[in-house]
């Protein structure tokens, strides 16, 4: 029933991930519109149930697990075999995982639209779906680990480090942060929030960050033809990420009702997160230095460069807004919404766009159909996202300053003041979503009408080893 063709599971994961992106982002835009037009669905049959509080988790769950994680699985199944110098351990299992992922994501969306939520941000799914999520991550981890176990290439390139670390730790983060998957929530009170944010932040630290950064370390040498500037630095970055990310979760509860020492620990570790980020950025700059001309020619490289700029901003914001004094202003405001999108959309989704443009021709043997649409996808995403991010960031500062100024009395003024920023955000969101529809159309056309991709350029293992400098 499931195909065993080489590269098929990676390709299928990419195809379905972009569909989940379209669905997930559409819910995001819907939520953004509800903030501008609160009576949009009032008295509309059936739609009236889908108020902001129900739509928002559908958006976050589907973009995080449907789109980004789906694209990450594809990237793992594409890059890991090439790094290991063998085929993927089991394409058949990989294709089963594709089906499993798609069914689970359907369940994710339906369950949340029906209001069956656990009431924890990013951990909304009921326990059965959580069990299945762990199974899904387990299936991927098994395939990845077994591919490495049977590898011919003995040296582990740094991308392999990041990806191996991620698939091993992510299920652990998920299980602990989701109350050990118990249906009856054994951890109550503020510790529930502590566990929630351990997970909420570390799904970023142990899943989205390492796989994304690993992909950058793979793609950059491939696209520029130059080895990574400093191999040693990339490894330092790996260990620091896996060391300092973990205890930072409580920075989501700074100045709140959790023990003071726990906040301090979280803040201290958050600030040190600057180190691994700067190792990545230094390496990126070092590798690209003298080859900036290549960026002009290549949309995937443009996506990577923009992602790194956004990564720099988000990872400077992050440690700073963990500080008590900064958090006092920015916490609870639109600033944080902007920050979250900067990481997951501006950085990691952009990296995945680059990965898809790079990997799909090599998986399908067909060129990307339209270079012009690629340009449109890039510029519309970039401009839309910049508008989105800047409006939320400024809006957040306006909100936070207003509360600080009069100790939160006359709260409604801060709601009124947000209107222009909410509108600008919805406009930016519309541009982002339109860009993705162009992207999906381009992928579809590539699959059915793309020109043949020259086989000489198809990533052979020897070429991989040469370009990555491993």
């Amino acid at each position: 029933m499931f195909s065993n063709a080489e590269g098929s599971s990676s390709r299928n994961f990419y195809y379905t991930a972009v569909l989940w992106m379209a669905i997930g982002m559409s819910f995001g835009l819907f939520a953004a519109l509800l903030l501008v037009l609160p009576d949009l669905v009032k008295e509309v049959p059936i739609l009236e149930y889908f108020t902001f509080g129900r739509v928002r988790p559908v958006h976050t769950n589907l973009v995080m697990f449907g789109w980004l994680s789906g694209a990450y699985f594809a990237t793992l199944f594409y890059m890991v075999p090439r790094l290991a110098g063998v085929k993927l351990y089991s394409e058949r299992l990989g294709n089963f995982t594709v089906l499993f992922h798609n069914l689970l994501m359907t369940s994710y969306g339906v369950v949340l639209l029906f209001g069956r939520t656990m009431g924890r941000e990013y951990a909304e799914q009921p326990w059965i779906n959580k069990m299945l999520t762990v199974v899904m991550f387990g299936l991927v981890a098994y395939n990845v680990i077994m591919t490495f176990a049977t590898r011919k290439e003995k040296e582990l390139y740094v991308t392999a480090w990041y990806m191996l670390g991620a698939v091993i730790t992510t299920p652990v983060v998920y299980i602990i942060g989701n109350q050990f998957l118990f249906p009856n929530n054994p951890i109550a009170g503020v510790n529930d929030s502590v566990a929630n944010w351990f997970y909420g932040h570390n799904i970023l630290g142990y899943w989205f960050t390492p796989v994304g950064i690993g992909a950058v370390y793979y793609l950059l040498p491939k696209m520029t033809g130059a080895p990574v500037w400093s191999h040693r630095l990339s490894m330092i970055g790996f260990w620091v990420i896996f060391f300092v990310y973990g205890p930072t979760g409580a920075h989501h509860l700074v100045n709140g009702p959790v023990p003071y020492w726990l906040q301090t620990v979280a803040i201290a570790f958050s600030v040190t997160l600057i180190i691994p980020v700067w190792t990545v950025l230094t390496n990126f700059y070092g590798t690209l230095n003298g080859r900036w001309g290549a960026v002009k020619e290549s949309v995937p490289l443009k996506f990577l460069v923009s992602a790194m700029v956004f990564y720099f901003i988000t990872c400077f914001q992050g440690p700073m807004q963990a500080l008590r004094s900064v958090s006092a202003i920015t916490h609870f405001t639109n600033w944080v919404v902007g920050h979250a999108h900067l990481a997951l959309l501006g950085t990691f989704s952009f990296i995945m766009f680059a990965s898809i443009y790079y990997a799909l021709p090599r998986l399908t043997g067909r060129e990307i159909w339209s270079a012009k649409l690629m340009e449109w996808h890039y510029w519309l995403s970039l401009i839309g996202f910049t508008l989105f991010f800047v409006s939320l960031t400024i809006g957040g500062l306006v909100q936070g300053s207003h509360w600080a100024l009069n100790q939160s009395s006359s709260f409604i003024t801060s709601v009124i003041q947000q209107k222009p920023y909410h509108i600008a955000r919805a406009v930016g969101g519309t541009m982002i979503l339109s860009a993705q529809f162009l992207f999906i159309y381009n992928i579809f056309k590539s699959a059915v009408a793309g020109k043949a991709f020259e086989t000489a350029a198809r990533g052979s293992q020897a070429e991989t080893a040469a370009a990555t400098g491993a």
Partner: protein
Amino acid sequence: MKNKLEKNAALLGLGAFLLLMFSVTITVVLPMLQGDLYVADAAAPVYDDANVALGREIYRREGCFYCHTQQVRTIDNDTFWRAPKTELKDGTVVGDRPTRPGDYANDNPALLGTERTGPDLKYVAHRLPSKDWHIAHLIDPRSTEPNSIMPSFAHLPANELDALADYLLSLRDWSIPIVTYAKYMGPDILNAGDEMLPEDYQGTKNPYKPGDPAALARAEQLIKDKGCLACHGTDMRGKNKTNGWANPPFPTDWYKAAEKHSDQFIYWIVSEGTLKEDGTASGMPAWRQNGVSEEDRWALVTFIKNLNTKK
């Protein structure tokens, strides 16, 4: 750099795993060992009332916590969200503080929230103790606050709205005792006279002369700050179905009140509200317990009585 880790995948994976376990130990396990920190505070709500518990389920189901926090931070910016400062009979002072872990001991899940698109709700029952208000607000948020961007929950069945309102009224500092001198008269209030006055309010006297300009100016400011007109209408004629009030009984027309009621009667209503005997159910909040001083309440009375001269 060539080292063992570059060849040994198992060692690499183990290293990553152990580092994660270090984090789990200090930030998940250690806080849980501080058991004494999480003993329920006297201020903490309990959810043994079935309707309140159902309300909390609905609050969670509809995702209210995505826009409303339930935590008062330890910084000045959050002062407004604190429960009112209250001195108990034995002299201890309660309320007026940031929230602590003990305030959430009975909460599962904890609904601390991360966004304040709408106001903090940890102590909302002190600011807005009227169930009528909450139900009207849930059915049509724009009827009580024209600039609200909250969705309408008119599609929820009446029993769920009732439960949700009961839950919102449970969001208070429970160490502050509920004391009320109010009588709930519903829409019949305009037919009531001074014979209704509780003992404490008989024989009280307005310190201001009718139309005292200082009192009127003070009252105007208070009306703006406390949002009186959200319910009583920007024209002060009271709201009803035709101008957007979603839930009877309807807030009183101040012109009619000025005509009908004595100074003492209005002073009593403004001070004690029109809540039911247990102080938690229906009607207008008791402004005496919501930071409006005696002088200020008399200023409001002067303002309302002064409407009699306008028409």
